[in-house]
């Protein structure tokens, strides 16, 4: 019984709901949207009213198409949104907005789909209507009404002439129910597939969207790079460089005083040593921020293990990397994991954490998890958002799942080939 429910009835119910929503959406909006679009286009010469109106109608069409795309997901079909992003500073009613709408092929593909889509959408009622009709026959409604003398029809018997035909409604109802439940997903599938032809991005649009995304991530990467260089320059200028100047001044002064005042010279030299120590510490911090020595020396696995040791709670590190990623990727992942682990140490309240590094199907994956209280987010400007942007430059993605109450899991993934073979593991413990 339960198997029946799971394998037949539940999918049938889902399909019926999807079909009903699809049909309602198609029947109520498509024709109206077509009419509005045509009117808006015709009004373009009339004082340009259409220029203001058409983008508004298009927005409605896109909303409708968006709903269909979402419904398609119920059938397991993913359709990416094909629209080119709106130009900046082009509110409704402007010529620029009109041009953007008209220039996007997706606009016309949406419009071309509306009417045929309404037909296939209407057919989507079948997964609901057929089983219902079957049930009607099955519960004997036609027989009851025929016996009561009502002029009633069911299926091919229209009206029902005799009791034999009325009784035939039972097997007919059962057949319709069975067919409706078993084959109900076909009309919906047809509709989704047909819609896909129109509502999916074309190859050209896909490329245009990709170029746009690359432009954005490249700009962000360049900005981040420039900001980083400025920070390094400032830190060197105000820190180590200034200290080295002070150092050479102290030594110069000591040189002058060496014969007359040995005690002052001793003080100056002690000061100089102090200053040189501070300069070294600053340089060390700077080097760590640019490219941590342990990463250069041990690669990603060793560097992540070193990171794990610095977190004030036990961290399990598992690494499955058959080779070494390219240096920039390694660095990006290292800093991403460092940021995630720093968050674990600071905010999570966790007692344990784990890091997993892996590589599969041309993608490098890094997962950082903890058993803390959860609720971590990546607000714009926060450390995690910065990490996400840094990974985006490599076409990488970062997902944070952190329900309140925990646990928090941060997964990072980025395409990368592993170049050289595994670096020799260190002797001793790891």
């Amino acid at each position, binding site marked *: 019984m339960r198997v029946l429910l799971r394998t037949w009835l539940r999918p049938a119910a889902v399909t019926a709901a999807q079909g009903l929503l699809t049909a309602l959406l198609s029947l109520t909006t498509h024709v109206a949207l077509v009419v509005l679009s045509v009117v808006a286009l015709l009004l373009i010469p009339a004082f340009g009213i259409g220029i203001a109106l058409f983008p508004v109608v298009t927005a409605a069409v896109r909303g409708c198409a968006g709903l269909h795309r979402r419904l398609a997901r119920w059938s397991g079909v993913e359709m990416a949104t094909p629209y080119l992003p709106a130009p900046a500073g082009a509110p409704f009613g402007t010529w620029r907005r009109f041009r953007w709408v008209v220039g996007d092929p997706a606009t016309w593909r949406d419009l071309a789909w509306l009417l045929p889509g309404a037909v296939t959408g209407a057919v989507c009622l079948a997964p609901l209507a057929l089983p219902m009709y079957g049930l009607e026959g099955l519960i004997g409604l036609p027989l009851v009404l025929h016996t009561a003398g009502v002029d009633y029809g069911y299926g091919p018997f229209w009206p029902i002439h005799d009791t034999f035909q009325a009784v035939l409604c039972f097997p007919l109802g059962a057949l319709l129910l069975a067919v409706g439940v078993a084959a109900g997903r076909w009309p919906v599938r047809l509709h989704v597939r047909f819609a896909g032809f129109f509502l999916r991005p074309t190859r050209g649009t896909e490329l245009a969207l990709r170029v746009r995304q690359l432009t954005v991530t490249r700009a962000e990467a360049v900005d981040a790079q420039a900001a980083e260089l400025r920070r390094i320059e400032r830190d060197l200028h105000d820190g180590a460089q200034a200290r080295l100047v002070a150092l050479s001044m102290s030594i110069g002064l000591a040189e002058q005083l060496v014969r007359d005042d040995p005690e002052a010279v001793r003080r100056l030299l002690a000061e100089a040593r102090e200053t040189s*120590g501070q300069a070294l510490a600053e340089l060390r911090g700077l*080097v*760590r921020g640019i490219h941590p*020595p342990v990463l250069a*020396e041990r690669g990603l696995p060793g560097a992540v293990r*070193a990171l794990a040791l610095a977190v*004030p709670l036990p961290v399990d590190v598992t690494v499955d990397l058959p080779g070494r990623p390219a240096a920039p990727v390694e660095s990006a992942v290292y800093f991403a994991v460092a940021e995630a682990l720093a968050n674990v*140490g600071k905010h999570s309240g966790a007692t344990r954490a784990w890091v997993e590094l892996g590589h599969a199907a041309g993608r490098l994956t890094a997962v950082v998890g903890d058993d803390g209280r959860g609720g971590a987010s990546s607000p714009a400007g926060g450390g995690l958002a910065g990490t996400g942007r840094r990974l985006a430059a490599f076409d990488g993605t970062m997902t944070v799942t952190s329900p309140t109450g925990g646990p928090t899991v941060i997964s990072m993934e980025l395409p990368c080939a592993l170049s050289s073979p595994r670096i020799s593991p260190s002797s*001793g*413990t790891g």
Partner: protein
Amino acid sequence: MRVVIAEDLALLRDGLTRILEAFGCQVVAAVDNGPSVLPALTAHRPDVAVIDVRLPPTFTDEGLQAAVRARAELPGLPVLVLSQHVEQLYARELLADRRGGVGYLLKDRVSHVDQFVDAVRRVAAGGTVMDPEVVAQLLARRDGAGPLAELTAREREVLGLMAEGRSNAAVAARLFVTEKAVDKHINNIFSKLRMPPSGDDNRRVLAVLAYLDGADTRRFPS
């Protein structure tokens, strides 16, 4: 005292040689790359080796690897490793064989000439010297529920100085307390860390670090 130095930068190599010779050590060999470390050590059998972590030809952790290998081949060979940066990971690897005579110091410490030479001597004598920065990192893991959390601030200070390889007298002088007080703190620390007390100064430092090390080694079986 006979010393072998491995350092690729000529300036630093000469500096180290000068400092050590000024304090009465004899630098029997000074090499500038990873592969010649082990032959130099086996040929000269020095009292202590001073090795830079990063050496040619790979400029990665060649020196550290050479140090670990040398201690495997010449058991008990005292090795002092110098580095621009200190990593707990490396400290653990050096301590992995659980023998004394190991040091791991930031290169900065060399500028405190007397302290540096003192560290070289302590390592040569079989002691364990960890850079204060490594010790600070180890002790910073206070948030965990481990036994370290049970230590008082003063006990933590004492443990830190112990881990740097200082004797009871040195710890007492540093903290301006009597040696007896230091003794008491140390006994408290040992009982809180559930370690049997031991009379040997160097052994006990090693024990502390081995404890901190061992508490974590099961985290990543390698």
